[in-house]
């Protein structure tokens, strides 16, 4: 163990930690702020809000996105909502309750102090976003509306139709745009980060590749923030956008940043099942549908009748049967595994028998078609557009899909990685969700990190560098990293094999999905750990990338991202293999109760696993940060 995993959690009672941190932190004088340059990579909720806030504070900021515009980041696709402990409904919510729910929802595998801070600043986020003009849903009296979400017992979720992520991202994008217009932030678009450069033990900047021209160059800075999202696309098929990738985080890992809990991935239960081999991505149907839809499969695996013709007593409403108290609203990880069990038992529905029914017939009979249309009309339209089936007449078909990754770059309380000067925010870090993320918490965390945490926690680091010269882009370490990047991209072009990057991505995704998806076992993971490196070797020998490296080349971009998914995929399986317990999204078939429920092992695994790069992707070095619970007591999650 050589990584320094000092979490830097402040002393004092849980509820006072953040306020005392803010009160005691070192500040940077306003006139000195412009002497510091901060690079922010990524313009999603975390990246855009961080860059905008740094710009407002007076730092020199450079913001990087590989999209054409900062507004495209995948935060935009979040549907459901954002949690905040406002207690506007007077139903007993509080910062402590949100904190507790999040720790429990994460199956007691997150760092308490970070989660408490998240719950504290959640209330500021709503104020901030409303001030920016985010059109959250309102009651007729003009006050903000809330709904309940993801099994919470209070209504604390704020939403903007089914487009909450879009409206929040546009809010942050507009604040960022204002800073760009004022000249406080410089925007680099269609530029991809391909490496991190460390000099004298601190992060000195990044290396980028211009997607339009292939130009590789360096950017020096006092500090770098990675807000580059998660790695859900390692599974190939996921609800992530096509370009989502792990390259920025993975390259930072290869340069010394610890990668924490890579096996904690969230498989969302309500997605439209795959229709064919060529499918490029999966589409999420909002979890809110489970409020009125009933999930079932035919009892007979050989059932051939249409859904409506299957008599009531020949249907298995398996969630209602197994989890009578939560029923169709059981948490994401639990519902997903139950769907998988039904499909694996041959009871799947649809042409490929790869889905389960989400049936609204009862709700339509009870409430009338108009009420259902009002509640879910846009989702029903979306479903029909994709599948060509009318969900008012026949049940939807759904199946779980990769959606979010709780693991990510290890960060301390200040969101600093194990490389001094390199920070990670949003889905790119591992900090707040433990082994399972609750619904409507991802938006909260992204904005918390960017607006309300990093602007405070980056100052102590920067204040140490005041009036000290930092290396510029002519330093040999930058030149060496640029050379390495050029060679890497040129290398893909020169392989001259026969198979496309997408072919390899698809094959890799299948292995990770089969053995490191919803149900993992020692045998399966060991198999994956043999198959992935073999496929990676084939990739290195038989990849074909057409076109050149000096103009826009999407095939080449893809090849580099797939290359990194291979190495990350190995780490995911390693992490899943050594975590001999089931917790949250990580389910090991060897560790379950007689009834098939997850069995945690708090004696041996109440820790974060932070992996260290050894130079050999198959032999990473394990480091541990013990999780010490001061306030919350371990308990078994039960939804029966």
């Amino acid at each position, binding site marked *: 163990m050589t990584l320094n995993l000092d979490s830097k959690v402040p002393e004092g009672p849980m509820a006072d930690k953040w306020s005392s941190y803010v009160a005691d932190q070192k500040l940077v004088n306003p006139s000195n702020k412009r002497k510091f340059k901060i690079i922010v990579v990524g313009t999603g909720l975390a990246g855009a809000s961080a860059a905008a806030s740094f710009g407002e504070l007076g730092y020199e900021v450079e913001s990087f996105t590989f999209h*054409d515009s900062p507004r495209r980041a995948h935060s935009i696709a979040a549907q459901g909502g954002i949690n905040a402990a406002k207690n506007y409904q007077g139903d007993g919510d509080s910062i402590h309750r949100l904190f507790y729910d999040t720790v429990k929802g994460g199956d007691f595998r997150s760092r308490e102090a970070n989660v408490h801070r998240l719950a504290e600043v959640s209330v500021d986020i709503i104020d901030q976003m409303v001030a920016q003009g985010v059109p959250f849903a309102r009651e007729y009296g003009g006050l903000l509306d809330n709904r309940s979400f993801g099994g919470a017992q209070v209504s604390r979720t704020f939403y903007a139709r089914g487009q909450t992520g879009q409206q929040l991202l546009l809010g942050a994008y507009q604040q960022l745009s204002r800073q760009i217009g004022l000249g406080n932030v410089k925007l680099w678009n269609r530029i991809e980060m391909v490496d991190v450069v460390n000099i004298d033990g601190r992060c000195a900047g990044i290396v980028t590749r211009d997607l339009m021209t292939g130009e590789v160059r360096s950017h020096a800075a006092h500090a770098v923030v990675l807000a580059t999202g998660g790695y859900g696309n390692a599974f190939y098929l996921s609800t992530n956008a096509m370009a989502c990738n792990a390259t920025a985080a993975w390259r930072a890992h290869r340069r010394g940043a610890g990668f924490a809990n890579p096996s904690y991935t969230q498989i969302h239960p309500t997605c439209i099942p795959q229709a064919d081999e060529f499918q490029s991505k999966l589409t999420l149907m909002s979890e809110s549908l489970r409020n009125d839809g009933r999930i079932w499969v035919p009892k007979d695996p050989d059932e051939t009748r249409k859904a409506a013709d299957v008599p009531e007593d020949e249907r298995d409403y398996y969630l209602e049967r197994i989890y009578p108290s939560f029923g169709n609203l059981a948490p994401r990880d639990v519902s997903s595994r139950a769907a998988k069990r039904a499909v694996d038992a041959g009871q799947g529905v649809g042409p490929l028998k790869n889905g389960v029914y989400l049936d609204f017939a009862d709700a339509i009979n009870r409430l009338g078609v108009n009420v259902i249309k009002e509640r879910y009309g846009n989702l029903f339209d979306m479903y029909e557009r994709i599948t060509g089936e009318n969900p008012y007449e026949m049940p939807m078909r759904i199946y779980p899909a990769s959606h979010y990754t709780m693991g990510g770059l290890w960060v301390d309380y200040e969101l600093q990685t194990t490389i001094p000067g390199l920070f990670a925010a949003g889905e790119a870090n591992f900090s707040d969700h433990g082994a399972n993320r609750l619904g409507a918490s991802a938006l909260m965390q992204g904005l918390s990190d960017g607006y309300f945490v990093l602007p405070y926690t980056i100052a102590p680091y920067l204040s140490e560098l005041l009036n000290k010269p930092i290396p510029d882009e002519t330093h040999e370490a930058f030149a060496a990293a640029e050379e390495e990047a050029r060679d890497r991209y040129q290398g893909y072009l020169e392989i001259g094999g026969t198979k496309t990057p997408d072919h390899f991505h698809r094959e890799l995704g299948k292995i990770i999905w089969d053995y490191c998806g919803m149900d993992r076992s020692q045998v399966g993971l060991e198999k994956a750990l043999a198959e992935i490196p073999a496929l990676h070797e084939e990739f290195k020998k038989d990849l074909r990338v057409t076109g050149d490296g000096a103009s826009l080349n999407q095939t080449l971009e893809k090849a580099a991202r797939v290359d990194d998914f291979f190495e990350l995929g190995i780490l995911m399986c390693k992490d899943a293999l050594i975590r001999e317990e089931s917790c949250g999204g990580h389910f090991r078939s060897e560790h379950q109760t007689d009834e098939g429920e997850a069995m945690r092992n708090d004696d041996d695994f109440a820790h974060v696993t932070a992996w260290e790069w050894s130079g050999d992707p198959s032999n990473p070095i394990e480091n541990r940060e013990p999780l010490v619970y001061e306030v919350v007591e371990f308990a078994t999650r039960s939804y029966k």
Partner: protein
Amino acid sequence: MSHTLTNITLKIWRQDGPDGQGRFETHQIPQISDEASFLEMLDILNERLIEEGREAIVFDHDCREGICGTCSLMIDGQAHGPQQGAATCQLHMRTFSSGDEIVIEPWRATAFPIIKDLMVSRAPLDRIVESGGFITAPTGGAPDANLIPIPKPVSDAAMDNAACIGCGACVAACPNGAASLFTSAKLTHLNLLPQGQAERYKRAEAMVETMEDHFGSCTNHGECSSACPKEISIDAIAIMNTDYRKSKTKNRRALSRR
């Protein structure tokens, strides 16, 4: 149940770079499932091209669920293709028939130069937002969110306009290459809300004038609204024009400086 379409002919615009001479290239799709999305058909074609040693066709796309606004194709002369209220990525092959010939082009607008093949630059849209498409509300110090009640119809109308995904279909569909629907959607979203009042006329003036630096002028054709994947109403343009006219008298400080 899925069906298979056969003998689709694609005429696709290829252009090597911003200054290159463009041309149509014809490709045959012998068969394709009607479950495939339009962009998945292009993925399949691209894989075939790479296997044949040819360069893949460049096109912009990302979320593939109609919300990020990245995709941008003229399909048979229609921005985002024949399906109303949907982006290109939400279009499925079941909309087409066996034997169809489909013409695929990039957005055509002077303000959107072609980068390569079907990809264009839409950077001027960001410049419009940078000039005023925001409410000045620096981080920290915001009042409690429930301090200002907003009537539901106002909030709903703001949301209707805030739904814009910034894809640029309105510009591509407009015979004048105007960005009035894009600009007015953002203006209407912010100008309707109580929080947006302090900067209302400053915002209108700045955004409209930045828009005019880059784009053509609106002559109320209405093509923008019918091409819009979010079906944003052309009413927004009327609101923008009213606020812009008022800005010339209400922004007196700005006037006096000239």
